[in-house]
């Protein structure tokens, strides 16, 4: 379980990005974090693995208080939190395999990683994951040769090979087309279910959030203004999160059964792009 207590971030510029956030994410829960640009979504997930240092408050991952760890312990804690990025953030000039294996860097010594001598079981796991996302034939390609959807799958493999307890996902679909976006979101949710991972997904697309997340948290100017199931996301709620707008068209008919659609669209249909 991830527990944030009175988490506050004030940037050097004086911007108060997070105002004393209290939030708990139970094991196995996929939570979507929605809110307008500048609401503090990115800051929040970066405070969890301390890519951004919180100003005050605490972050607990199960029994570990992440927010007070020294550098070495922090590295160990980061291994338990996989991160997936908006623009994929793959190392462009490294191969797909190297990118996936870079998820194991926290586990292997510098020289092993320098000479790319990863343990065989890591390599086996990398192939297994690539096969799971339909990219095993791409292992030797350079990351910058892949399409957007393919790159994000590699990003997912990199996060999963860490064997994490929690996924921190920052706008996974922001640079993808609508169809690929759905496939990627579906893949993430399936993998979370398979591995019983909890996840925080920052996402702009309210409809996607409703389709795939079990719980939605709305952030506005660094404060939680909504926390509840997707079905309660009414027009007036969206107005408090985002401001005045005609929201009726955005709201999903939540009775729709997404699961039937889940199996009909082939997962790796952009393999042959």
């Amino acid at each position, binding site marked *: 379980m991830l527990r944030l207590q009175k988490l506050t971030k004030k940037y050097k510029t004086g911007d108060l990005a997070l105002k004393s956030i209290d939030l708990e994410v139970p094991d196995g829960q996929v939570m979507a974090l929605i809110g307008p640009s500048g609401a503090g979504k990115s800051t929040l997930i970066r405070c969890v693995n301390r890519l951004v240092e919180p100003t005050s408050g605490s972050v607990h991952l199960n029994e570990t208080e992440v927010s007070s760890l020294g550098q070495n312990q922090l590295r160990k804690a980061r291994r338990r939190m*996989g991160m997936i990025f908006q623009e994929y953030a793959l190392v462009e000039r490294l191969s797909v395999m190297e990118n996936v294996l*870079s998820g194991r860097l926290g586990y292997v010594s510098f020289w092993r*990683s320098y000479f790319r001598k990863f343990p065989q079981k890591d390599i086996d796991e990398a192939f297994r994951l690539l096969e799971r996302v339909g990219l095993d034939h791409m292992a030797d390609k350079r990351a910058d040769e892949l399409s957007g959807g393919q790159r994000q799958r590699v990003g997912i493999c990199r996060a999963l090979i860490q064997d994490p307890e929690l996924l921190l996902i920052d706008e996974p679909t922001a640079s993808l087309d609508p169809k690929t976006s759905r496939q990627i979101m579906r893949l993430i949710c399936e993998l979370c279910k398979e591995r019983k991972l909890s996840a925080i997904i920052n996402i702009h697309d309210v409809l996607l959030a409703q389709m795939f997340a079990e719980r939605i948290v709305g952030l506005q100017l660094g404060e939680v203004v909504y926390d509840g199931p997707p079905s309660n996301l009414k027009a007036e709620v969206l107005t408090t999160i985002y401001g005045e707008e005609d929201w009726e068209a955005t709201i999903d008919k939540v009775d729709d059964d997404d699961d039937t659609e889940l199996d009909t669209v082939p997962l790796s249909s952009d393999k042959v792009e």
Partner: protein
Amino acid sequence: MPIKQQSDIKIWKRRSGKRQLGIWFGQFIGVAIFVYCWQLVSENTIWMFVADAPRQAVDMMERMVPPKWSYMSNLWRPIWDTITIATLGTLMAVVFAFPIAFLAARNTTPSSVFVRPVALFIIVASRSINSLLWALMLVTILGPGVFAGVLAIGFRSIGFCAKLLYEAIEEIDEAQVEAVTATGASGAQILNYGIVPQILPAFAGISVFRWDINIRESAILGLVGAGGIGLQLSSSIDTVTWTQVSVILLVILVTVVASEWVSAKVRHAII
């Protein structure tokens, strides 16, 4: 502001009137300085000699032809030395410039208060002294020879390579570094996986470019006794054997063209 309301039309100009006047004034000052300097130079020139220049030039050309091709047999060794000086000097520079660049780049320096200024000082010091001056000093310290030349080229190139490389480091995509950091990688691993792959093309390009420049620079180091073909050049000029000078100049030309061809090929292959 450049937009002016004239009855119901909005007139737009690139600059406001005041600013435009200022720019014209600046240009006028520039022209005035140029005219003044021209006058100074012309006062200090002995125009009689300049009037004589075309005749002198033709005279020198005449003494240069035909090139004394038999002199070539004395030149193979110095050319080899020249290329060696350039190559070893570049190699030495690259080895030192690589770590210095990481110490100097804002995003990788261990301390921007203590380490970065030192690294920047090394870069500036190395760059501010011309290779010929480095060679002059090193020949005094080490005695004449190829070794002094290698060090002179090396010292001059450290700053050049380190400066271009640290600028490349400062321009990397931080998202890739962030992603590697998030896996729990150590500092050295972040460098190896997140940063080095991003700057490798720049690094290769800079090294080859500097090697290309160094071929040209090492060709004249012999003038101060630091080895290479410059030694022959200087002695041929001293003994006014212009037919040898022309052979040497042609040889330098061919070497430089060849090095440029090689570096273009290598750069193309890497990037």
